[in-house]
């Protein structure tokens, strides 16, 4: 069951990556698929870690990042 879940997750990551790259006009070749998906999963793991931190909604994004003087 666990393996099936893992496979299903992998397929959904792969489907997401292929679709998103297509939006950018990029074709993901079969040959590159395994390594690209591994990289996507690594970023997804990072996002899971960051997103699990309970930030309050008042905290604004630091998009225009500056170091205070």
């Amino acid at each position, binding site marked *: 069951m666990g393996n099936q879940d893992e496979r299903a997750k992998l397929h959904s990551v792969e489907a997401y990556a292929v679709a998103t790259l297509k939006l950018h006009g990029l074709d*993901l070749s079969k040959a590159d698929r395994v390594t690209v998906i591994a*990289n996507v999963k690594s970023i997804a793991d*990072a*996002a899971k870690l*960051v997103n699990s931190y309970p*930030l309050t909604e008042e905290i*604004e994004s630091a998009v225009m990042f500056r*170091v205070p003087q």
Partner: protein
Amino acid sequence: MTAEDQPTSRVASDDADLHVSASAHLSAALAKISNINPRVNAFTDVVEDRAVAMAACIDNKRSAGGKLGRLAGVPFAVKNMIDIAEVRTRAGSKINLDNAPATRDATLIRRLESEDAVLVGALNMGEYAYDFTGENWHYGPSRNPHCIDHMSGGSSGGSGAAVAAGLVPVALGSDTNGSIRVPSAFCGVFGLKPTFGRLSRSGSFPFVGSLDHLGPLAQSVSLLSSAYDVMQGGDRDDPACVDRTIEPTFDSLSADIRSLRIAVAGGYFSRNAEPEALQSVRDVADALDAHLTIEIPEAERARAAAQIITAAEGGSLHLDRLRSRPGDFDPIVRDRLFAAATVPAAWVQNAQRFRWWYQMQVLQLFETVDVILAPTTPCRAPRIGQKELVLDGKIVPLRPAIGLFTQPISFIGLPVVTVPRWVDYGLPLSVQIITAPWREDLALRVAFHLEKMGVVRMRKPDTI
């Protein structure tokens, strides 16, 4: 500090001396490049004619009794993502080599030359700076001068290798997630990643606009400080560069450090490293009589957030090139950039929100300490081509692990000086000296004292 311990010269490298002509310095540097570079692969471009003309100009000024600049006759080179007039800015890539040559020098080159330093060329780097190893698919790896089968570290690999091999006493690199500090560590030289916004990036090829820094690598702390001092100053051509009063560091290098509150970073920074990396931090702390330990909160999450922002900004920067010339990338870099192009906006937004929160937490630490010590890398320079590393008994992918301790620091733009530490006859290790924003002076001062004590130093390679 005794009088002997004062920084006595602006040009403190072994090879640079105000009493020797700039032309003589340059000849020595060019000869070394010719003899040694084929083994370390640090240089991709040498601008000999320009350098000869510059050195002659300095010598003429000297003969005429003119005032010489603070870096008179010091040869230097720059990572090949920094513009040199009339040279193609490769940024480690094959693709950018098709661009027209740069029409002018980058701001930092102009500032170094205004103090009579002599530019000798451009240095190898990881493709588009998305690298910690110093390996390059197109131009070959820059090699570690202390053991040429080992990595120089990256992405400023040529900068670390050139300084360690004695080809130039100072070089410029860039640091997004550790790319000055990692090659400084692996090659056993001094490095400075300044506060985000301190030094202009104008005329350099970007990677991640909100994380990119430029800075020097050097053979000694006084040279590092001198180069840093002359490069300071605002620049309207770099929107992130802060128009801040120049704060020179050289004259205060030997100032007392006994009043500084120095702590070792515990927790995250005391795990997932080879014992010698942690021993190096303890050795430096002991030498400084530093017994405090503090915890930088949520450093692992900070590293994860840095990874997301790096992917999002880097991925979007290269979209056109990925579409038009995918076959001309290093396949490993292309795979990373393809993956990076898929990052959803919500992840980036949250990473940026976390960044702000994390910055506030870490800045609070500097209310109780002035300096934080941490390992630079979890290991010594691995073999070229190595893909995995054992940390705390677990096999982990090598490339991302190299940045374990550098990413959480540059993520919020803190200044860091890295100092080389030799614990045995093996390859060097390194310690990060981290301070509050805009306090590069304190980090350089501590590094200078450690160098004078002989606790940290650059060592000439035996093998080349």
